[in-house]
């Protein structure tokens, strides 16, 4: 695309002519410049280049969708202007009316005027349409895995490949029946979340206080019908219905971290350790591409917290429109956490950000339910309590990714130590000062 050889030499001659005291000096400096130009170029691994390329393409795709939406709005404005200008002319008026009618019909259908089971038309729910339009993979997952648990309100999805998104997005025929599919064919996520269960209630027991049909109308993906049901004054999160708390009797004592050595070799801690928690954040301007409540949006907010959402991970998103604003409850199960690992739950308020962190306990270490967690950045603050041992005098770590797991910590109670399994964040990082290897740092995730 660009080639500069001729210009390069001229500019260099000019610069050296201006500053060098003698032709010999100019000749020497030119040779150095020539050596500089011939230096071998640093090359990245092809996997990094292709990964970044794929990631950029994904971002570009969501940004492009955003532009398309804006253009559609602009198109409507243009029609209005046109109509105003040519309204005195009957021929134009008729033509414009026809165009407007066609466009209106197209827009209604492309935005998902939902047919009800009775054959009538239900009012369009903007949340439903936005989510389903941008989450064809969710629909895909729902179609592949018929529900084994009817009545589970959240629409969960196993994250799949992106390729299918393109074809399905461009297929308007896939749009109209999304609402029913979401409700009827939600994938079987037995673990997520026990929204229907009151604290202490057994699964399968009757739940007279929570009429299932009403919940479904109001809840997932903001499917409430305008005018039929008033907005709730405040959000009601599924996690709150089975919220528990725990207080440790003792104090957690963090184990030393050994880098490139084993505990028996350790003599004195490393003198100087620098560590930073730098999750790969998505810049604010990129976030506009993903509609609130969509899978891409959830991936972005999780990514900003350091959770790297990958293919095969499970995301469940519940949206609520209330008089206080729009809220989302995001359940995330990373493959890295393992099937038996703790599941993360986030409460999010539109315009405000994440307002709560929780995890779902299955009964492995405490009673089943949801327990509050620290944010990864707050949990990372405890890294200062860790003693580092390494063969080097100085260590620099850069941690960029995190996942929720269980880890055995030492708890000290009345001068007695015991091992206690606790929910923990595993921070994945790399030693940067010596271009070193990967390192896993486990820190307690509970407050």
């Amino acid at each position, binding site marked *: 695309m660009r080639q500069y050889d001729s210009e390069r030499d001229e500019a260099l001659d000019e*610069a050296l002519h201006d500053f060098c005291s003698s032709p010999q000096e100019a000749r*020497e400096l030119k040779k150095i410049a020539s050596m500089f130009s011939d230096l071998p170029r640093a090359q990245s691994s092809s996997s990094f280049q292709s990964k970044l390329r794929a990631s950029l393409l994904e971002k570009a795709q969501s940004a492009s969708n955003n*532009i398309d939406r804006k253009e559609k709005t602009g198109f409507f404005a243009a029609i209005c202007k046109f109509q105003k200008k040519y309204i005195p002319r009957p021929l134009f008026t008729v033509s414009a009316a026809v165009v407007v009618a066609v466009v209106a019909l197209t827009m209604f259908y492309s935005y998902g005027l939902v047919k009800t089971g009775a054959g009538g038309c239900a009012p369009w729910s903007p949340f439903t349409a936005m989510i389903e339009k941008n989450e064809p993979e969710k629909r895909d997952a729902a179609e592949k895995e018929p529900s084994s648990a009817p009545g589970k309100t959240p629409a969960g999805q196993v994250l799949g490949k992106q390729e299918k998104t393109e074809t399905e997005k461009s297929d308007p025929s896939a749009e109209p029946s999304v609402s029913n599919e979401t409700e009827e064919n939600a994938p079987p996520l037995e673990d997520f979340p026990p929204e229907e269960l009151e604290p202490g209630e057994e699964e399968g027991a009757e739940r007279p206080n929570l009429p299932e049909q009403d919940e479904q109308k109001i809840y997932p993906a903001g499917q409430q019908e305008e005018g039929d049901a008033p907005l709730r004054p405040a959000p009601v999160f599924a996690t709150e219905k089975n919220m528990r708390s725990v207080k440790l009797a003792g104090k957690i004592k963090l184990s030393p971290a050994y880098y490139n050595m084993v505990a028996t070799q350790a003599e004195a801690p490393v003198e100087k350790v620098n560590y930073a928690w730098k999750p790969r954040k998505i810049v604010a301007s990129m976030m506009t591409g993903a509609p609130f409540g969509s899978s891409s949006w959830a991936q972005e907010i999780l990514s900003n917290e350091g959770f790297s959402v990958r293919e095969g991970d499970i995301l469940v998103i519940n949206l609520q429109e209330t008089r206080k604003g729009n809220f989302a409850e995001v359940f995330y199960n990373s493959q890295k956490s393992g099937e038996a690992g703790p599941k993360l739950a986030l409460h999010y308020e539109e315009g405000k950000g994440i307002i709560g962190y929780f995890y779902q306990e299955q009964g492995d270490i405490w009673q089943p339910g949801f327990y509050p967690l620290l944010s990864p950045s707050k949990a990372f603050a405890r890294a200062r309590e860790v003693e580092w041992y390494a063969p080097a005098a100085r260590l620099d770590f850069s941690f960029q990714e995190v996942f929720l797991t269980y880890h055995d910590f030492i708890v000290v109670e009345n001068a007695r130590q015991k091992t206690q399994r606790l929910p923990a964040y595993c921070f994945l990082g790399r030693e940067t000062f010596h271009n070193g290897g990967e390192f896993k740092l486990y820190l307690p995730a509970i407050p």
Partner: protein
Amino acid sequence: MLLEEKEREIVYNAQKDPRSFTPLYDHYFPKVYNYIYRRVQNVQLTEDLVAETFYKALANINKFKWRGQGYSFAGWLFTIARNQVIDQFRKQEPQLLGESGWDLVAPETDNPEDRVLQAATREDLLKVIQTLTPNQQDALLLRFQEGLKIKEIAAVLDKNEGAIKALLFRGLKSLRKKLEGGDYDAAV
């Protein structure tokens, strides 16, 4: 020959449709990677900063405008990359060179030109570059490795063309001096 028109067209397309950003990425990735690696000398950091540079470029490509002389897409992109490097250096303490035990000794010869060139291997040169001031490193890398024009470098470094020529001259002179066996204190 400079195919600026072609680049303009690609940038214009990318501004209209971000999916058309990929040709720019494919073309500039090796250059940006090389530039950042030469500045930070660490693969992991380089990957982070390169990714951040391209994310920012993609997010802000609509803000890029062809504004007069020296303001090219390459200049704009390297400005983002350079800002990433500067931010990185602000966060971390200076990295000391010379600890690895490498040493350069000027050979015995009467001809100063030969003296420099005999002593300086590519590896030596790579190490000595790290001892230049950040601006000298930027100017030399952008000029002789990435092939930017003087006016483009001036836009990246926010200086005038005369200042860039002076930086190049002082940088080369400093390299020569250090390759002859001068001081090696790191300047990053």
